[in-house]
């Protein structure tokens, strides 16, 4: 025997299914909206912050610059006037205020170069690093000590004393040679008071980074 109630309901099955779809779609509209924490969670960010790879020392950077390492992209986050006074060779100037400017996104949002951010000290570069990581950009580093650190280690390194190990002298020699390379001749007997040393203006080469679209595999198929 046919269940009459069931038959009655089944005769209206299309109406029921259609209203189900409608209610589900309406539910999406009526759901309260909330701000989502997209991509980068606090844990994710902390893991990156405590990662020592976040910093690059001025010695390592100097070595890479001398070897003309093509994978390095220097970003100067100081203001334009400071950038014009002195910057590292090949650095691009993206002032801190406009770090999120979409015009610069092509330079920052990429995965081919190791980006090195620097400012006068660590402070601004670190903030920029954090902001860009929040945007989930890749391969970001901060020059430890910034331009000041660069000056104190590469351009005007402290002379090691007699009781220091051999490595300290080797490092000192390297730094002196690097200083010469970067256009600052330092005599071995330079007086500390002689600062400011004549900073030879290095005309920064404007590096052009080709913005390569990420190729995604095209899904195939159809109905």
């Amino acid at each position, binding site marked *: 025997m046919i269940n009459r109630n069931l038959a009655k309901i089944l005769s209206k099955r299309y109406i029921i299914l259609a209203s189900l*779809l*409608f209610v589900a*779609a*309406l539910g*999406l*509209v009526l759901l309260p909206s909330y701000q989502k924490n997209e991509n980068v969670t606090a844990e994710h960010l902390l893991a990156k912050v405590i990662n020592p790879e976040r910093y690059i020392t001025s010695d390592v950077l100097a070595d890479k610059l001398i070897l003309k390492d093509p994978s390095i992209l220097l970003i100067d986050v100081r203001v334009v006037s400071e950038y014009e006074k002195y910057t590292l060779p090949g650095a691009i100037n993206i002032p801190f205020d406009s770090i999120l400017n979409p015009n610069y996104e092509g330079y920052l949002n990429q995965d081919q170069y190791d980006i090195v951010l620097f400012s006068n000290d660590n402070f601004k570069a670190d903030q920029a690093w954090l902001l860009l990581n929040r945007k989930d950009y890749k391969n970001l580093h901060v020059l430890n000590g910034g331009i000041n650190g660069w000056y104190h280690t590469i351009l005007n390194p402290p002379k090691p004393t007699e009781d220091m190990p051999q490595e300290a002298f080797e490092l000192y020699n390297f730094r002196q040679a690097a200083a010469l390379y970067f256009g600052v001749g330092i005599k071995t007997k330079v007086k500390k008071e002689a600062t400011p040393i004549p900073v030879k203006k290095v005309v920064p080469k404007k590096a052009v980074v080709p913005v390569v679209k990420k190729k995604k595999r*095209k*899904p195939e198929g*159809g*109905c």
Partner: protein
Amino acid sequence: MGPLIPNGFLSYEWNIIIAVLIGLAFGFILEASGFSSSRKLAGVFYGYDFAVLKVFFTAALVSVIGLYYMDYLGWINMSMLYVHPTYLWGAIIGGAIMGIGFVAGGFCPGTSICAVAIGKLDAWVYVIGIMIGILIFSEAFPIFEKIYNGYYLGNITLVDSFELPASWIILAVTLLALVAFFVSDIVRKRVKKVFY
């Protein structure tokens, strides 16, 4: 948490395995619901059978509504999903050719393979036609290249074009679908029944 593979819940190699399983299920259900019959498929153009319209519209709605609920609950990250890039005129011309092929041959590419699997001869002709079409397109690619790569609009969706919240667009599309189902039912009742 989702999508599962980009977020590392499943290793990359599962991609192809899941694709094969979904493909098998898709083919089986196409055939089981009679979509390997060119008469059923062509019915949507002549007005005696709107199963194609209803099935594919419903499938799209169920998946979009489900995905947005899952996105809301944090089960999947919609921004990580792949959005197919739009090449405007390529899509329009390609869609028109596909539509003509659909109404003339009674298959769309997926269902034609399904029909080949159950041994339909017209489906074989259709698939050979597809192959010839691919050959012509490949050989004459320099002629079509401008359309193929031009009019690029990026990975846009209706949300980007209308600048409305996704939920409103989903509601609008749902209403559109329900109206289409309702109208198609009326049309089907008016059109002379075809036995197939």
